[in-house]
């Protein structure tokens, strides 16, 4: 029984992990290459989910809505980059934090105006509902498996993009030494815009995929944003590989903590106390991990080379 539970919780952890990766990938590229702190990354996640919900109402098809939501989020991302962020690259981090925090407030109110105060309806099509018995006797939601599959596919795609293509080479070069890249005649500004758009679209994809399982409402991106920052700090800022490993690590640790911490603590304290304290301690685990990584390896687990 426990072994089955362990497998199921591992899947849950993987699912959380790939969702975090989608958020963290964009964040780490933007932070690593442009040295830009973008707090509004969570807003792009929210924009993705809102676009999907609105397009679903409009078209009636989940797949179509999801496919339309991605370019829509990309567009929003590009507009944000061109209108707001471009002016901030040369400023210090505090200015960037202030301005992008302003963007969060702007987007939260904007979706309020567009979608109303109530949470929006975003449900799965029938063919994605239902459960699969990968483990006999323990049905697992089909959609969560789809999320894992899409997440891993995107991760693979990104890996190939970054390691095997010319654009990827430029991205890596940008993360290592921006000034040198610019001196070699590469249009860094265009590269920035492209990378930011890519990051926005990935965040949007995260939002689209989370939409059917969570409440699509104003401010939904903020919790995910905090976790994504934890991921990139642990993984090493600017590193896709680090973001991937750290995202899975955090997904697994967080899920396992929630699943088993109360029972483990029950071994050393009273049952009632463990049931109350367990979830609280479990929600601290990832921050403890981050503190540990910062202490022993401040550059993160997989920092980009050449820094």
């Amino acid at each position, binding site marked *: 029984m426990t072994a089955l539970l362990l497998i199921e919780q591992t899947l849950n952890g993987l699912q959380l992990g790939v969702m975090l990766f989608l958020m963290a990938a964009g964040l780490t590229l933007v932070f690593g290459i442009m040295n830009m702190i973008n707090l509004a990354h969570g807003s792009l996640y929210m924009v993705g989910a809102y676009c999907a919900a609105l397009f679903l109402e409009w078209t009636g098809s989940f797949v179509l809505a999801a496919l339309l939501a991605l370019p829509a989020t990309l567009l929003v991302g590009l507009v944000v980059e061109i209108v707001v962020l471009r002016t901030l690259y040369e400023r210090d981090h505090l200015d960037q934090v202030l301005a992008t925090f302003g963007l969060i407030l702007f987007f*939260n109110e904007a979706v309020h105006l567009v979608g109303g105060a109530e949470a929006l309806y975003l449900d799965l099509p029938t063919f994605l509902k239902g459960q699969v018995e990968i483990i006999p006797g323990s049905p697992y*939601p089909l959609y969560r498996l789809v999320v894992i599959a899409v997440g891993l596919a995107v991760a693979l795609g990104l890996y190939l993009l970054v390691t095997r293509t010319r654009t990827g080479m430029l991205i890596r070069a940008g993360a290592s030494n921006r000034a040198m890249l610019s001196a070699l005649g590469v249009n860094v500004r265009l590269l920035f815009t492209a990378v930011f758009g890519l990051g926005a679209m990935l965040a949007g994809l995260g939002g689209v995929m989370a939409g059917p399982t969570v*409440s699509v409402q104003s401010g939904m991106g903020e919790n995910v944003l905090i976790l994504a920052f934890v991921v990139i700090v642990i993984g090493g800022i600017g590193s896709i590989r680090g973001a991937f490993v750290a995202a899975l690590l955090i997904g697994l640790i967080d899920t396992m903590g929630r699943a088993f911490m109360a029972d483990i603590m029950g071994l050393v304290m009273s049952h009632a106390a463990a049931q109350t304290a367990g979830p609280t301690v479990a929600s601290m685990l990832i921050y403890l991990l981050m503190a540990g990584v910062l202490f022993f390896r401040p550059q993160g687990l997989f920092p980009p080379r050449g820094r």
Partner: protein
Amino acid sequence: MKARTIALAAAFALTATLSAQAADKVKIGYVTTLSKGPAAIGKQMQDAVELALDHLGKKMGNLPVEVVYVDDEFDPEIGKLRSEELVKKDKVDFVSGFIWSNVLLQARQPVFKANTFLISSNAGPHELAGKECSPWFFSTSWQNDQMPEAMGKYMTDAGIKRVYILSPNYPAGRDMVAGFKRTYKGEIVGETLTPWPQHADWSAEFAKIRAAQPKPDAIFVFYPGGAGVNFVKQYAQSGLKDTMPLYNVFTTDSTTLKAQGDAALGLLSTMSWGPDLQNDANKRFVADFKKKYGYIPSFYAAQAYDSIMLIASAVKAVNGKIEDKEAVRKALKASDFASVRGQVKFNNNHFPIENFYIQEVVKDADGNYDTRIKGTVLLAHADAYGAKECKMK
């Protein structure tokens, strides 16, 4: 120096006489959440307050009414700050609203200290019902424990032997668990308190429930607002809906039903009010509300409407002399108004003694999601703390 002291004393004397003068209007401060995720709830309450003012002709007794809405931003500290401003800067005569127990617990001190009545439209933490009950506090909702007490009784009567409990870990969440345990006589197989408000994924908890030994017959939850949307959607997707029934409090209501969709259909909850509750005041409230705003009101709206109607009944009873706080208190305590919740009396701690019903989520003829009352669970039910712990008479 001396002249200044005298001037100051004169100024004080002047304000004293001014404040002793008869009021020329009733000023109500209304604290609710108007931004962030739970803004839909605050919007419903605001709509209901406006409807109540329409029904009153914007007058209480002979006095015109002014309502100042403030946003607690879903944050106890900000709720406290704004409430303090209401009594100090705006000098309101009544403070009302409050969705969240943790916000109310923070915000009450400055209001009570300013000798201002606070009428809760929703939150009902047990602290205010028991040892820390206050003559300045009234509620047109319920004490938190009452709702799960009704559900505990219903599930016991329905012969449900084993239950797994999920609830958020904050004051109201803990009250819900305590209330449920007070009346539920079966076995509680497991209980998980999840972090609040950031917890958004229950896959780990669902796996735990599925693996729990002995196997639970049902799940009992409390997840208000957006958390309820997340939870109910994931509960349906996990496949548990087909094997393990879900009983809830405050998780399926008109603020969440649209986003929950079919996932919520058939779910049972207990409530002290429903849009289909049969009494004249409620028929008028629900019909006019739908007409004015085009959606079905939730219990949040109904209780907000009752808060204003309670205040109006008291202002009328004292003939507009709202500066006589003792008389106002007596009039509030009398609860002499047509509540949309039917017959309601106040317990010694000023929490309502009222009926609790079991209701089911249905789809009505127009395809809207709504709730239908299936039966009465508890008649004229008083909270568990007033008689035992509150010293007020």
